[in-house]
């Protein structure tokens, strides 16, 4: 499978950047001629992953969030969102719906939403080193669309 386009973006883990990150990824994905629903799914999944970096990865500190995206010749969007924060001790537990370590008003649904709004997600994490989330979304080809 050939990679036909890619981007890289580094942002500071400020909550004001959540909207910027999801809109940037959505703008990149628009080359695949997605439907409004597909764009909305991508924005939501990216927003969850970036918020996780801010709330869980870096907690009360500021660090960098590394976002990269690729579009493949088969119409797949792959977005990698990485932080160098505290990492996740138990990924399986963290991915359980309603599980959250921060309390307050976090619903604990971040990973459940990411799973539900993409075709595939992969999480890799090392305690003390950080977390990488890969989101994969297949954009269905539409009549007359140009994925080039």
């Amino acid at each position, binding site marked *: 499978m050939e990679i036909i386009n890619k981007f890289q973006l580094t942002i500071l883990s400020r909550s004001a950047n959540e*909207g910027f990150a999801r809109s940037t990824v959505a703008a990149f994905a628009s080359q695949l001629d997605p439907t409004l629903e597909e764009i909305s799914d991508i924005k*939501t999944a990216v927003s969850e992953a970036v*918020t996780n970096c801010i709330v869980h990865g870096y907690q009360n500190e500021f660090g960098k969030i590394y976002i990269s995206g690729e579009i493949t010749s088969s119409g797949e969007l792959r977005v990698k969102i990485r932080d160098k924060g505290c990492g996740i001790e138990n990924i399986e537990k963290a991915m359980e719906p309603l599980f959250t370590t921060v309390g*307050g008003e976090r*619903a604990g*649904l971040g990973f459940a939403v990411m799973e539900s709004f993409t075709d595939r997600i992969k999480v890799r994490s090392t305690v003390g080193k950080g977390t990488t989330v890969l989101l994969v979304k297949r954009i269905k080809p539409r009549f007359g669309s140009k994925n080039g």
Partner: protein
Amino acid sequence: MLTKTQVTGEVVTVYLKGELDHHTARRMREAIDAAVELNMPSLLVLDFSEVGFMDSSGIGLVMGRYRILSKTGAQLHIQGLSPAIYKIMRLAGMERLATLQSKA
């Protein structure tokens, strides 16, 4: 302004505006809670007609308001939901806490 409040008898309606994420949720939450504390409604209506985006931060906001309202037995109604926001509300099972209504 991210919110606008309307009080009619025992019904408080809060109109939310903009994008609801972790960044904006706090200000929206504070405005809703202030309106509830001041008016002690029997029904709180949250209007999402002008919310263009919501992630699971919005679910946290709804769950938190439900907890506050349930202390006094008040009800929660959520209206003006776009298809995308309705999808997240349903995914999180919010129909068990509130009545949900899509955008007309």
